[in-house]
């Protein structure tokens, strides 16, 4: 499911037009992004929580060329799945995983190996 499919599903489930549903979905993720930018965690009961984790600078290597690179200190968002959703997901094991390829389109893979 992509964001636009989520918007379509929202519109279908509620009384909203797609335009209004888009405003709602965008507002939710913009608000969450703003909180993370401030370094603030987000807790959604039954879903999970997002925290911002600081990472120290380290010297790594470009996995493709082996050239050394200095990775500066950074902050990364971290998601911890909530109990209810964790169980929901685990209980879907008998179903195939769907929703497109594993490699996402948003990422350009420029970031050196991490996590």
């Amino acid at each position: 499911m992509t964001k636009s499919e989520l918007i379509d599903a929202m519109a279908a489930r509620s009384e909203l037009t797609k335009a209004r549903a888009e405003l709602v979905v965008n507002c939710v993720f913009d608000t969450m992004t703003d909180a993370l930018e401030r370094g603030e965690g987000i807790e959604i009961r039954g879903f999970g929580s997002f925290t911002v984790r600081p990472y120290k600078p380290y010297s790594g290597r470009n996995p493709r060329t082996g050239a050394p690179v200095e990775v500066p200190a950074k902050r990364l968002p971290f998601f911890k799945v909530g109990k209810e959703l964790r169980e929901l997901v685990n209980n879907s094991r008998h179903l195939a995983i769907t929703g497109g390829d594993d490699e996402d389109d948003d990422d350009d893979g420029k970031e050196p190996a991490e996590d």
Partner: protein
Amino acid sequence: MTKAEIVQALYARVGGFSKKESADLVDLVFEMMKETLGRGEKIKISGFGNFVLRDKRQRPGRNPQTGDPIKISERRVLTFKASQVLKQALNPRSATPPHSGAASNGGSVSTSSTGGAGSAATSSPSLAAAASTKA
């Protein structure tokens, strides 16, 4: 931040919804995401990140308290992979912007990031700009 604050933001930023409607809509967003993940479908929110499902095989583990060997059963897990746009929003200066538009925005965010309210106010337009260069 809790769901109540997201509801408040929706009520304040998007006109035409009562508080009750705002609360129901925010609930609906997370409910639909839960339903989707609960039927084995991953979710990609461009500009935010991907909620990815992975099947893990059974593997040996240890009780961290006692050191006793235990069996970790096979399971399906959910992981979140933040988008480059979100990572850059959290790291305005150190990020290497792919396009010049994002670069100028990154600069404006970093200067205002010391003032809490200021950074919150400027973050949305800069994100929108960054997202549009990605799209």
